[in-house]
Protein backbone atom coordinates (compact mmCIF):
# COMPACT_ATOMS: atom_id res chain seq x y z
CA UNK A 1 0.00 0.00 0.00
CA UNK A 2 2.85 2.34 0.94
CA UNK A 3 4.61 1.45 -2.26
CA UNK A 4 1.49 2.26 -4.25
CA UNK A 5 1.20 5.68 -2.65
CA UNK A 6 4.85 6.47 -3.18
CA UNK A 7 5.29 5.28 -6.74
CA UNK A 8 2.04 6.75 -8.05
CA UNK A 9 2.27 10.00 -6.13
CA UNK A 10 2.11 12.24 -9.20
CA UNK A 11 -0.95 10.50 -10.58
CA UNK A 12 -2.68 10.44 -7.20
CA UNK A 13 -1.99 14.12 -6.63
CA UNK A 14 -3.40 15.09 -10.03
CA UNK A 15 -6.45 12.88 -9.40
CA UNK A 16 -6.95 14.57 -6.03
CA UNK A 17 -6.86 18.00 -7.67
CA UNK A 18 -9.36 16.81 -10.29
CA UNK A 19 -11.76 15.61 -7.58
CA UNK A 20 -11.34 18.81 -5.60
CA UNK A 21 -12.22 20.86 -8.67
CA UNK A 22 -15.26 18.64 -9.28
CA UNK A 23 -16.46 19.20 -5.71
CA UNK A 24 -15.92 22.94 -6.00
CA UNK A 25 -17.88 22.95 -9.25
CA UNK A 26 -20.74 20.82 -7.95
CA UNK A 27 -20.88 22.72 -4.65
CA UNK A 28 -21.20 26.46 -4.27
CA UNK A 29 -18.61 27.33 -6.85
CA UNK A 30 -15.94 29.99 -6.60
CA UNK A 31 -15.23 33.14 -8.51
CA UNK A 32 -12.39 32.95 -11.00
CA UNK A 33 -10.27 35.41 -9.04
CA UNK A 34 -10.32 33.11 -6.03
CA UNK A 35 -10.20 29.75 -7.81
CA UNK A 36 -7.20 30.49 -10.02
CA UNK A 37 -4.68 31.06 -7.17
CA UNK A 38 -5.95 27.87 -5.49
CA UNK A 39 -5.34 25.84 -8.63
CA UNK A 40 -1.94 27.44 -9.16
CA UNK A 41 -0.90 26.60 -5.58
CA UNK A 42 -2.07 23.00 -5.99
CA UNK A 43 -0.14 22.63 -9.23
CA UNK A 44 2.96 24.05 -7.55
CA UNK A 45 2.47 21.57 -4.70
CA UNK A 46 2.26 18.77 -7.26
CA UNK A 47 5.50 19.97 -8.79
CA UNK A 48 7.31 20.15 -5.44
CA UNK A 49 5.97 16.76 -4.38
CA UNK A 50 7.23 15.30 -7.61
CA UNK A 51 10.81 16.29 -6.81
CA UNK A 52 11.11 14.02 -3.75
CA UNK A 53 11.11 10.28 -3.04
CA UNK A 54 11.59 9.22 -6.62
CA UNK A 55 12.50 5.59 -6.86
CA UNK A 56 12.33 2.73 -9.25
CA UNK A 57 9.48 0.28 -9.12
CA UNK A 58 6.70 -1.49 -10.93
CA UNK A 59 3.06 -2.00 -10.01
CA UNK A 60 0.06 -4.03 -11.20
CA UNK A 61 2.06 -6.84 -12.75
CA UNK A 62 4.37 -4.52 -14.71
CA UNK A 63 1.50 -2.51 -16.20
CA UNK A 64 2.84 0.57 -14.47
CA UNK A 65 6.51 1.24 -13.88
CA UNK A 66 8.50 4.26 -12.85
CA UNK A 67 12.13 5.30 -12.59
CA UNK A 68 13.77 8.57 -11.50
CA UNK A 69 14.05 9.56 -15.17
CA UNK A 70 10.33 8.98 -15.72
CA UNK A 71 9.61 11.01 -12.59
CA UNK A 72 11.71 13.85 -14.02
CA UNK A 73 9.81 13.67 -17.30
CA UNK A 74 6.54 13.88 -15.38
CA UNK A 75 7.82 16.87 -13.48
CA UNK A 76 8.74 18.61 -16.72
CA UNK A 77 5.14 18.13 -17.92
CA UNK A 78 3.80 19.29 -14.55
CA UNK A 79 6.00 22.37 -14.78
CA UNK A 80 4.53 23.01 -18.22
CA UNK A 81 0.96 22.96 -16.88
CA UNK A 82 1.93 25.15 -13.92
CA UNK A 83 3.54 27.71 -16.23
CA UNK A 84 0.48 27.67 -18.50
CA UNK A 85 -1.72 28.42 -15.49
CA UNK A 86 0.58 31.38 -14.73
CA UNK A 87 1.28 32.93 -18.12
CA UNK A 88 -2.27 32.51 -19.38
CA UNK A 89 -3.93 33.81 -16.21
CA UNK A 90 -5.20 36.94 -17.95
CA UNK A 91 -7.16 34.77 -20.38
CA UNK A 92 -8.15 32.25 -17.71
CA UNK A 93 -9.67 34.91 -15.46
CA UNK A 94 -11.98 35.99 -18.25
CA UNK A 95 -13.23 32.54 -19.16
CA UNK A 96 -16.63 31.53 -17.95
CA UNK A 97 -15.83 27.91 -17.04
CA UNK A 98 -12.47 27.97 -15.29
CA UNK A 99 -13.05 24.84 -13.20
CA UNK A 100 -14.00 22.77 -16.26
CA UNK A 101 -11.00 24.06 -18.14
CA UNK A 102 -8.62 22.79 -15.48
CA UNK A 103 -10.61 19.58 -15.13
CA UNK A 104 -10.01 18.80 -18.78
CA UNK A 105 -6.41 19.95 -18.75
CA UNK A 106 -5.54 17.90 -15.66
CA UNK A 107 -7.32 14.83 -17.06
CA UNK A 108 -5.12 15.13 -20.12
CA UNK A 109 -2.09 15.57 -17.87
CA UNK A 110 -3.06 12.44 -15.94
CA UNK A 111 -3.27 10.58 -19.23
CA UNK A 112 0.21 11.76 -20.14
CA UNK A 113 1.64 10.66 -16.78
CA UNK A 114 0.17 7.18 -17.27
CA UNK A 115 1.36 7.19 -20.88
CA UNK A 116 4.96 7.74 -19.84
CA UNK A 117 4.71 5.15 -17.06
CA UNK A 118 2.75 2.53 -18.97
CA UNK A 119 4.31 -0.87 -19.46
CA UNK A 120 1.68 -2.45 -21.63
CA UNK A 121 0.02 -1.64 -24.95
CA UNK A 122 -3.40 -1.58 -23.28
CA UNK A 123 -2.32 1.11 -20.81
CA UNK A 124 -0.53 2.84 -23.66
CA UNK A 125 -3.72 3.03 -25.72
CA UNK A 126 -6.01 4.00 -22.83
CA UNK A 127 -3.73 6.76 -21.60
CA UNK A 128 -3.13 8.08 -25.10
CA UNK A 129 -6.90 8.46 -25.45
CA UNK A 130 -7.13 10.06 -22.01
CA UNK A 131 -4.48 12.50 -23.14
CA UNK A 132 -6.21 13.45 -26.40
CA UNK A 133 -10.01 13.39 -25.93
CA UNK A 134 -10.06 16.15 -23.25
CA UNK A 135 -7.82 18.30 -25.43
CA UNK A 136 -10.39 18.15 -28.23
CA UNK A 137 -13.04 19.35 -25.78
CA UNK A 138 -10.67 22.09 -24.62
CA UNK A 139 -10.08 23.24 -28.19
CA UNK A 140 -13.80 24.04 -28.36
CA UNK A 141 -13.65 26.26 -25.29
CA UNK A 142 -14.53 29.50 -27.08
CA UNK A 143 -18.06 28.16 -27.49
CA UNK A 144 -19.42 31.00 -29.58
CA UNK A 145 -16.46 31.34 -31.92
CA UNK A 146 -16.81 29.58 -35.27
CA UNK A 147 -13.10 28.91 -35.58
CA UNK A 148 -12.86 27.29 -32.19
CA UNK A 149 -15.47 24.65 -33.00
CA UNK A 150 -13.93 24.11 -36.41
CA UNK A 151 -10.55 23.49 -34.82
CA UNK A 152 -12.05 21.13 -32.26
CA UNK A 153 -13.85 19.21 -35.02
CA UNK A 154 -10.58 18.73 -36.88
CA UNK A 155 -8.84 17.66 -33.70
CA UNK A 156 -11.43 15.03 -32.67
CA UNK A 157 -11.75 13.57 -36.16
CA UNK A 158 -8.01 13.30 -36.70
CA UNK A 159 -7.41 11.86 -33.26
CA UNK A 160 -10.23 9.31 -33.68
CA UNK A 161 -8.78 8.32 -37.03
CA UNK A 162 -5.25 8.05 -35.70
CA UNK A 163 -6.35 5.98 -32.71
CA UNK A 164 -8.11 3.62 -35.14
CA UNK A 165 -4.83 3.19 -37.01
CA UNK A 166 -2.95 2.72 -33.74
CA UNK A 167 -5.38 0.01 -32.67
CA UNK A 168 -5.08 -1.81 -35.96
CA UNK A 169 -1.32 -1.87 -35.49
CA UNK A 170 -1.68 -3.12 -31.92
CA UNK A 171 -4.08 -5.87 -33.01
CA UNK A 172 -1.56 -7.08 -35.59
CA UNK A 173 1.20 -7.05 -32.99
CA UNK A 174 -1.02 -9.10 -30.70
CA UNK A 175 -1.72 -11.50 -33.52
CA UNK A 176 1.97 -11.98 -34.32
CA UNK A 177 3.40 -12.20 -30.83
CA UNK A 178 0.47 -13.05 -28.57
CA UNK A 179 1.48 -10.46 -25.99
CA UNK A 180 0.89 -6.79 -25.38
CA UNK A 181 3.42 -6.32 -22.61
CA UNK A 182 6.39 -4.02 -23.28
CA UNK A 183 8.82 -6.31 -21.46
CA UNK A 184 7.92 -9.44 -23.43
CA UNK A 185 7.58 -7.87 -26.87
CA UNK A 186 11.29 -7.40 -27.74
CA UNK A 187 12.01 -11.13 -27.36
CA UNK A 188 9.01 -12.13 -29.44
CA UNK A 189 9.39 -9.54 -32.20
CA UNK A 190 10.46 -11.41 -35.31
CA UNK A 191 11.06 -8.56 -37.74
CA UNK A 192 8.79 -10.12 -40.36
CA UNK A 193 7.08 -7.95 -42.96
CA UNK A 194 3.80 -8.12 -41.06
CA UNK A 195 5.50 -7.01 -37.87
CA UNK A 196 7.07 -4.04 -39.65
CA UNK A 197 3.69 -3.10 -41.07
CA UNK A 198 2.19 -3.24 -37.60
CA UNK A 199 5.02 -1.07 -36.34
CA UNK A 200 4.39 1.48 -39.09
CA UNK A 201 0.69 1.64 -38.16
CA UNK A 202 1.63 2.25 -34.52
CA UNK A 203 4.32 4.76 -35.39
CA UNK A 204 2.04 6.76 -37.68
CA UNK A 205 -0.48 7.14 -34.87
CA UNK A 206 2.26 8.56 -32.65
CA UNK A 207 3.32 10.76 -35.55
CA UNK A 208 -0.25 12.11 -35.71
CA UNK A 209 -0.02 13.16 -32.07
CA UNK A 210 3.45 14.66 -32.53
CA UNK A 211 2.27 16.28 -35.80
CA UNK A 212 5.22 15.04 -37.80
CA UNK A 213 4.99 15.73 -41.54
CA UNK A 214 3.05 14.17 -43.39
CA UNK A 215 0.67 13.68 -40.44
CA UNK A 216 0.60 17.39 -39.60
CA UNK A 217 -2.36 18.59 -41.61
CA UNK A 218 -4.67 19.19 -38.63
CA UNK A 219 -2.06 21.02 -36.56
CA UNK A 220 -2.13 24.54 -37.89
CA UNK A 221 -5.94 24.69 -38.05
CA UNK A 222 -6.38 23.39 -34.52
CA UNK A 223 -3.71 25.71 -33.16
CA UNK A 224 -5.28 28.73 -34.81
CA UNK A 225 -8.84 27.87 -33.85
CA UNK A 226 -8.27 26.87 -30.24
CA UNK A 227 -7.87 29.43 -27.42
CA UNK A 228 -4.20 30.32 -26.81
CA UNK A 229 -3.74 28.39 -23.51
CA UNK A 230 -5.00 25.24 -25.23
CA UNK A 231 -2.63 25.83 -28.12
CA UNK A 232 0.21 26.25 -25.65
CA UNK A 233 -0.78 23.01 -23.91
CA UNK A 234 -1.01 21.14 -27.21
CA UNK A 235 2.27 22.39 -28.57
CA UNK A 236 4.36 22.01 -25.41
CA UNK A 237 2.98 19.51 -22.92
CA UNK A 238 1.35 16.99 -25.22
CA UNK A 239 4.26 17.14 -27.69
CA UNK A 240 6.69 16.57 -24.83
CA UNK A 241 4.75 13.61 -23.46
CA UNK A 242 4.51 11.89 -26.82
CA UNK A 243 8.20 12.55 -27.52
CA UNK A 244 9.09 10.87 -24.22
CA UNK A 245 6.92 7.85 -24.90
CA UNK A 246 8.18 7.62 -28.46
CA UNK A 247 11.67 7.08 -27.05
CA UNK A 248 10.45 4.31 -24.74
CA UNK A 249 8.59 2.62 -27.58
CA UNK A 250 11.43 2.84 -30.07
CA UNK A 251 14.35 2.06 -27.77
CA UNK A 252 12.80 -0.68 -25.66
CA UNK A 253 9.88 -2.26 -27.46
CA UNK A 254 11.05 -2.04 -31.06
CA UNK A 255 14.75 -2.50 -30.36
CA UNK A 256 14.95 -5.62 -32.65
CA UNK A 257 13.96 -3.64 -35.74
CA UNK A 258 16.17 -0.64 -35.05
CA UNK A 259 17.54 -0.46 -38.59
CA UNK A 260 13.98 -0.10 -39.90
CA UNK A 261 12.85 2.63 -37.61
CA UNK A 262 16.09 4.56 -38.01
CA UNK A 263 15.37 5.09 -41.73
CA UNK A 264 11.77 6.01 -40.96
CA UNK A 265 12.75 8.55 -38.30
CA UNK A 266 15.41 10.15 -40.52
CA UNK A 267 13.05 10.59 -43.48
CA UNK A 268 10.21 11.96 -41.36
CA UNK A 269 12.46 14.35 -39.46
CA UNK A 270 13.90 15.82 -42.65
CA UNK A 271 10.38 16.24 -44.03
CA UNK A 272 9.17 17.86 -40.79
CA UNK A 273 12.01 20.32 -40.59
CA UNK A 274 11.77 21.34 -44.24
CA UNK A 275 8.00 21.62 -44.54
CA UNK A 276 7.54 23.14 -41.09
CA UNK A 277 10.12 25.81 -41.88
CA UNK A 278 8.93 26.57 -45.39
CA UNK A 279 5.31 26.95 -44.29
CA UNK A 280 6.24 29.01 -41.24
CA UNK A 281 7.88 31.58 -43.51
CA UNK A 282 4.59 32.63 -45.08
CA UNK A 283 2.33 32.72 -42.02
CA UNK A 284 0.61 35.92 -40.92
CA UNK A 285 -1.20 34.70 -37.80
CA UNK A 286 1.09 34.33 -34.77
CA UNK A 287 -0.55 31.06 -33.64
CA UNK A 288 -0.27 29.49 -37.08
CA UNK A 289 3.31 30.70 -37.20
CA UNK A 290 4.09 29.02 -33.88
CA UNK A 291 2.27 25.89 -35.07
CA UNK A 292 4.55 25.47 -38.06
CA UNK A 293 7.56 26.39 -35.98
CA UNK A 294 6.61 23.62 -33.53
CA UNK A 295 6.37 21.15 -36.45
CA UNK A 296 9.93 22.12 -37.38
CA UNK A 297 11.06 21.78 -33.74
CA UNK A 298 9.59 18.27 -33.62
CA UNK A 299 11.74 17.51 -36.65
CA UNK A 300 14.76 18.56 -34.59
CA UNK A 301 13.62 16.39 -31.68
CA UNK A 302 13.50 13.46 -34.10
CA UNK A 303 17.12 14.15 -35.07
CA UNK A 304 17.98 13.51 -31.44
CA UNK A 305 15.67 10.50 -31.16
CA UNK A 306 17.20 8.83 -34.23
CA UNK A 307 20.44 7.58 -32.72
CA UNK A 308 18.93 5.60 -29.86
CA UNK A 309 21.60 5.68 -27.14
CA UNK A 310 21.78 7.29 -23.69
CA UNK A 311 23.08 10.55 -25.13
CA UNK A 312 20.08 10.92 -27.39
CA UNK A 313 17.48 10.34 -24.72
CA UNK A 314 19.30 12.80 -22.43
CA UNK A 315 19.42 15.36 -25.22
CA UNK A 316 15.70 14.96 -25.95
CA UNK A 317 14.65 15.38 -22.31
CA UNK A 318 16.94 18.41 -22.00
CA UNK A 319 15.63 19.93 -25.22
CA UNK A 320 11.99 19.41 -24.23
CA UNK A 321 12.70 21.31 -20.99
CA UNK A 322 14.20 24.22 -22.93
CA UNK A 323 11.51 24.09 -25.59
CA UNK A 324 8.90 24.26 -22.83
CA UNK A 325 10.34 27.50 -21.43
CA UNK A 326 10.83 29.11 -24.84
CA UNK A 327 7.51 28.15 -26.38
CA UNK A 328 5.51 29.00 -23.26
CA UNK A 329 7.15 32.43 -23.12
CA UNK A 330 6.15 33.04 -26.75
CA UNK A 331 2.62 31.76 -26.18
CA UNK A 332 2.41 33.72 -22.93
CA UNK A 333 3.09 37.00 -24.70
CA UNK A 334 0.65 36.04 -27.45
CA UNK A 335 -2.03 35.27 -24.81
CA UNK A 336 -1.52 38.55 -22.98
CA UNK A 337 -1.81 40.53 -26.20
CA UNK A 338 -4.79 38.49 -27.44
CA UNK A 339 -6.57 38.79 -24.08
CA UNK A 340 -6.27 42.59 -23.95
CA UNK A 341 -6.41 43.70 -27.56
CA UNK A 342 -7.72 40.65 -29.45
CA UNK A 343 -4.88 40.97 -31.96
CA UNK A 344 -3.23 37.80 -33.28
CA UNK A 345 -1.47 38.81 -36.49
CA UNK A 346 2.26 39.34 -36.84
CA UNK A 347 1.62 42.70 -38.49
CA UNK A 348 -0.18 43.83 -35.31
CA UNK A 349 3.07 43.29 -33.41
CA UNK A 350 4.74 46.12 -35.32
CA UNK A 351 6.01 48.78 -32.96
CA UNK A 352 5.25 46.66 -29.90
CA UNK A 353 8.57 47.68 -28.34
CA UNK A 354 7.53 51.34 -28.02
CA UNK A 355 4.40 50.54 -26.03
CA UNK A 356 5.25 47.25 -24.27
CA UNK A 357 9.02 46.87 -23.83
CA UNK A 358 8.76 44.04 -21.26
CA UNK A 359 6.55 41.86 -23.47
CA UNK A 360 8.72 42.52 -26.51
CA UNK A 361 11.90 41.53 -24.66
CA UNK A 362 10.36 38.28 -23.41
CA UNK A 363 9.07 37.48 -26.89
CA UNK A 364 12.44 38.28 -28.46
CA UNK A 365 14.26 36.10 -25.93
CA UNK A 366 11.83 33.23 -26.59
CA UNK A 367 12.21 33.53 -30.35
CA UNK A 368 16.01 33.69 -30.11
CA UNK A 369 15.92 30.53 -28.02
CA UNK A 370 13.59 28.78 -30.48
CA UNK A 371 15.90 29.76 -33.33
CA UNK A 372 18.92 28.50 -31.37
CA UNK A 373 21.08 31.62 -31.06
CA UNK A 374 24.06 31.05 -28.69
CA UNK A 375 23.59 32.80 -25.36
CA UNK A 376 20.09 31.36 -24.96
CA UNK A 377 19.38 27.78 -23.92
CA UNK A 378 17.89 26.87 -27.28
CA UNK A 379 21.37 26.81 -28.79
CA UNK A 380 22.63 24.26 -26.29
CA UNK A 381 19.51 22.15 -26.67
CA UNK A 382 19.92 22.00 -30.45
CA UNK A 383 23.66 21.42 -30.10
CA UNK A 384 23.11 18.34 -27.95
CA UNK A 385 20.33 17.09 -30.24
CA UNK A 386 22.56 17.33 -33.30
CA UNK A 387 25.52 15.79 -31.45
CA UNK A 388 23.33 12.87 -30.43
CA UNK A 389 21.98 12.52 -33.96
CA UNK A 390 25.52 12.55 -35.34
CA UNK A 391 26.67 9.61 -33.26
CA UNK A 392 25.66 7.26 -36.08
CA UNK A 393 27.91 9.11 -38.47
CA UNK A 394 25.36 10.34 -41.03
CA UNK A 395 26.76 13.79 -41.65
CA UNK A 396 24.53 14.64 -44.61
CA UNK A 397 21.59 14.37 -42.25
CA UNK A 398 23.24 16.75 -39.77
CA UNK A 399 24.01 19.16 -42.59
CA UNK A 400 20.32 19.24 -43.57
CA UNK A 401 19.38 19.88 -39.94
CA UNK A 402 21.92 22.70 -39.64
CA UNK A 403 20.69 24.29 -42.88
CA UNK A 404 17.17 24.16 -41.52
CA UNK A 405 18.29 26.07 -38.45
CA UNK A 406 19.41 28.83 -40.80
CA UNK A 407 16.05 28.91 -42.60
CA UNK A 408 14.30 29.10 -39.24
CA UNK A 409 16.38 32.14 -38.27
CA UNK A 410 14.72 34.09 -41.06
CA UNK A 411 11.16 33.72 -39.88
CA UNK A 412 11.87 33.99 -36.16
CA UNK A 413 13.77 37.22 -36.70
CA UNK A 414 10.97 38.53 -38.91
CA UNK A 415 8.77 38.75 -35.81
CA UNK A 416 11.59 40.35 -33.81
CA UNK A 417 12.04 42.93 -36.55
CA UNK A 418 8.33 43.68 -36.57
CA UNK A 419 8.39 44.29 -32.82
CA UNK A 420 11.57 46.33 -32.53
CA UNK A 421 12.27 48.04 -35.85
CA UNK A 422 9.06 48.50 -37.82
CA UNK A 423 7.12 51.70 -37.37
CA UNK A 424 3.40 51.55 -36.74
CA UNK A 425 0.83 54.35 -36.50
CA UNK A 426 -1.48 52.35 -34.24
CA UNK A 427 0.58 49.90 -32.16
CA UNK A 428 -0.93 47.70 -29.46
CA UNK A 429 -1.74 50.05 -26.55
CA UNK A 430 0.31 49.70 -23.33
CA UNK A 431 -0.88 46.63 -21.45
CA UNK A 432 -0.96 46.29 -17.67
CA UNK A 433 0.15 42.68 -17.37
CA UNK A 434 -1.31 40.83 -14.39
CA UNK A 435 1.04 39.84 -11.55
CA UNK A 436 0.91 36.09 -12.07
CA UNK A 437 1.31 36.40 -15.84
CA UNK A 438 4.35 38.57 -15.22
CA UNK A 439 5.72 36.01 -12.76
CA UNK A 440 5.22 33.22 -15.30
CA UNK A 441 6.93 35.18 -18.06
CA UNK A 442 9.86 35.99 -15.76
CA UNK A 443 10.23 32.30 -14.80
CA UNK A 444 10.23 31.40 -18.50
CA UNK A 445 12.82 34.10 -19.23
CA UNK A 446 15.09 32.92 -16.41
CA UNK A 447 14.65 29.36 -17.61
CA UNK A 448 15.62 30.32 -21.16
CA UNK A 449 18.80 32.05 -20.01
CA UNK A 450 19.93 29.76 -17.19
CA UNK A 451 19.06 26.26 -18.43
CA UNK A 452 21.72 26.60 -21.10
CA UNK A 453 24.34 28.11 -18.80
CA UNK A 454 24.09 25.52 -16.06
CA UNK A 455 25.76 22.37 -17.30
CA UNK A 456 24.79 20.36 -14.24
CA UNK A 457 21.20 20.10 -15.51
CA UNK A 458 22.40 18.08 -18.49
CA UNK A 459 24.70 16.00 -16.27
CA UNK A 460 21.86 15.43 -13.84
CA UNK A 461 19.56 14.13 -16.58
CA UNK A 462 22.35 11.88 -17.83
CA UNK A 463 23.00 10.52 -14.33
CA UNK A 464 19.37 9.36 -14.09
CA UNK A 465 19.73 6.81 -16.91
Amino acid at each position, binding site marked *: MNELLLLMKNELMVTAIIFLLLFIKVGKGMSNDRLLPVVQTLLLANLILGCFFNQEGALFGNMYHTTPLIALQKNILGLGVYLISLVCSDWLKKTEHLAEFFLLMLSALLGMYLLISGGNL*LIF*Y*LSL*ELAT*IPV*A*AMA*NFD*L*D*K*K*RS*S*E*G*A*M*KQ*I*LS*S*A*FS*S*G*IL*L*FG*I*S*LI*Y*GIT*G*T*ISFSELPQLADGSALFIMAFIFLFSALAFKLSIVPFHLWT*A*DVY*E*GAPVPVTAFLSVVSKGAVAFVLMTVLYKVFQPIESTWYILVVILSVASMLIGNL*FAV*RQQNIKRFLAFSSIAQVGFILVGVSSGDIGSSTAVVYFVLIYLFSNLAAFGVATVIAAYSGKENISDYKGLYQTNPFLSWVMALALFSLAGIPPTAGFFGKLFLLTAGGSKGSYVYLLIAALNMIISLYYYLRVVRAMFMDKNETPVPPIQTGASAKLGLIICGIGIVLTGMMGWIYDYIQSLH
Partner: protein
Amino acid sequence: MMEPGLYHILFISAALFFIGIYGFFTRRNLITMLMSTELILNSVNLNFIAFNKYLWPGKMDGLFFTVFVIAIAAAEAAVGIAIIINLYRSHQSIDVASAEDLKY
Protein backbone atom coordinates in the same frame (compact mmCIF):
# COMPACT_ATOMS: atom_id res chain seq x y z
CA MET B 1 -20.31 -26.49 -45.86
CA MET B 2 -16.98 -24.88 -45.10
CA GLU B 3 -16.11 -24.02 -41.52
CA PRO B 4 -15.09 -20.32 -41.26
CA GLY B 5 -11.48 -20.00 -40.18
CA LEU B 6 -9.09 -17.27 -39.10
CA TYR B 7 -8.48 -16.04 -42.64
CA HIS B 8 -12.15 -15.44 -43.35
CA ILE B 9 -12.48 -13.26 -40.28
CA LEU B 10 -9.25 -11.43 -41.02
CA PHE B 11 -10.51 -10.78 -44.53
CA ILE B 12 -13.73 -9.27 -43.19
CA SER B 13 -11.91 -7.14 -40.66
CA ALA B 14 -9.38 -5.85 -43.22
CA ALA B 15 -12.26 -5.04 -45.57
CA LEU B 16 -14.07 -3.18 -42.77
CA PHE B 17 -10.89 -1.28 -41.94
CA PHE B 18 -10.40 -0.06 -45.48
CA ILE B 19 -14.10 0.71 -45.98
CA GLY B 20 -13.78 2.87 -42.87
CA ILE B 21 -10.71 4.65 -44.22
CA TYR B 22 -12.35 5.11 -47.61
CA GLY B 23 -15.46 6.54 -45.98
CA PHE B 24 -13.40 8.85 -43.78
CA PHE B 25 -11.64 10.35 -46.77
CA THR B 26 -14.56 10.58 -49.18
CA ARG B 27 -17.60 11.48 -47.07
CA ARG B 28 -18.18 15.17 -46.44
CA ASN B 29 -20.73 14.78 -43.68
CA LEU B 30 -19.29 14.92 -40.18
CA ILE B 31 -21.58 12.27 -38.69
CA THR B 32 -20.70 9.89 -41.50
CA MET B 33 -17.02 10.55 -40.93
CA LEU B 34 -17.46 9.70 -37.26
CA MET B 35 -19.30 6.52 -38.30
CA SER B 36 -16.37 5.61 -40.53
CA THR B 37 -13.98 5.79 -37.59
CA GLU B 38 -16.36 3.52 -35.69
CA LEU B 39 -16.07 1.03 -38.55
CA ILE B 40 -12.29 1.12 -38.18
CA LEU B 41 -12.56 0.48 -34.45
CA ASN B 42 -14.96 -2.41 -34.99
CA SER B 43 -12.62 -4.01 -37.51
CA VAL B 44 -9.96 -3.86 -34.82
CA ASN B 45 -12.31 -5.56 -32.39
CA LEU B 46 -12.90 -8.37 -34.87
CA ASN B 47 -9.15 -8.73 -35.29
CA PHE B 48 -8.56 -9.01 -31.56
CA ILE B 49 -11.31 -11.56 -31.05
CA ALA B 50 -10.18 -13.67 -34.02
CA PHE B 51 -6.54 -13.68 -32.93
CA ASN B 52 -7.57 -14.55 -29.41
CA LYS B 53 -9.80 -17.44 -30.48
CA TYR B 54 -7.65 -19.01 -33.19
CA LEU B 55 -4.03 -18.17 -32.33
CA TRP B 56 -3.70 -17.38 -28.62
CA PRO B 57 -6.61 -19.04 -26.83
CA GLY B 58 -4.69 -19.04 -23.55
CA LYS B 59 -3.89 -15.33 -23.55
CA MET B 60 -6.97 -13.26 -22.88
CA ASP B 61 -5.35 -9.86 -23.59
CA GLY B 62 -7.19 -9.59 -26.89
CA LEU B 63 -10.57 -10.08 -25.33
CA PHE B 64 -9.87 -7.48 -22.64
CA PHE B 65 -8.62 -5.06 -25.24
CA THR B 66 -11.91 -5.34 -27.12
CA VAL B 67 -13.92 -4.40 -24.05
CA PHE B 68 -11.79 -1.31 -23.51
CA VAL B 69 -11.94 -0.34 -27.19
CA ILE B 70 -15.75 -0.43 -27.10
CA ALA B 71 -15.81 1.80 -24.02
CA ILE B 72 -13.32 4.31 -25.43
CA ALA B 73 -15.13 4.39 -28.77
CA ALA B 74 -18.29 5.40 -26.93
CA ALA B 75 -16.44 8.17 -25.09
CA GLU B 76 -14.88 9.40 -28.30
CA ALA B 77 -18.23 9.42 -30.08
CA ALA B 78 -19.77 11.36 -27.17
CA VAL B 79 -17.16 14.12 -27.34
CA GLY B 80 -17.25 14.07 -31.14
CA ILE B 81 -21.00 14.47 -31.31
CA ALA B 82 -20.92 17.24 -28.69
CA ILE B 83 -18.40 19.11 -30.83
CA ILE B 84 -20.47 18.51 -33.97
CA ILE B 85 -23.61 19.86 -32.26
CA ASN B 86 -21.68 22.96 -31.28
CA LEU B 87 -20.39 23.28 -34.83
CA TYR B 88 -23.96 23.02 -36.10
CA ARG B 89 -25.00 25.85 -33.78
CA SER B 90 -22.36 28.19 -35.16
CA HIS B 91 -22.31 27.10 -38.81
CA GLN B 92 -25.92 25.87 -39.33
CA SER B 93 -24.54 22.84 -41.14
CA ILE B 94 -22.59 19.65 -40.49
CA ASP B 95 -20.92 19.55 -43.87
CA VAL B 96 -17.12 19.67 -43.80
CA ALA B 97 -17.15 22.11 -46.68
CA SER B 98 -18.98 24.68 -44.55
CA ALA B 99 -16.22 24.63 -41.96
CA GLU B 100 -13.26 25.95 -43.87
CA ASP B 101 -12.48 29.31 -42.36
CA LEU B 102 -9.06 28.06 -41.39
CA LYS B 103 -6.86 27.87 -44.42
CA TYR B 104 -3.36 28.77 -45.39
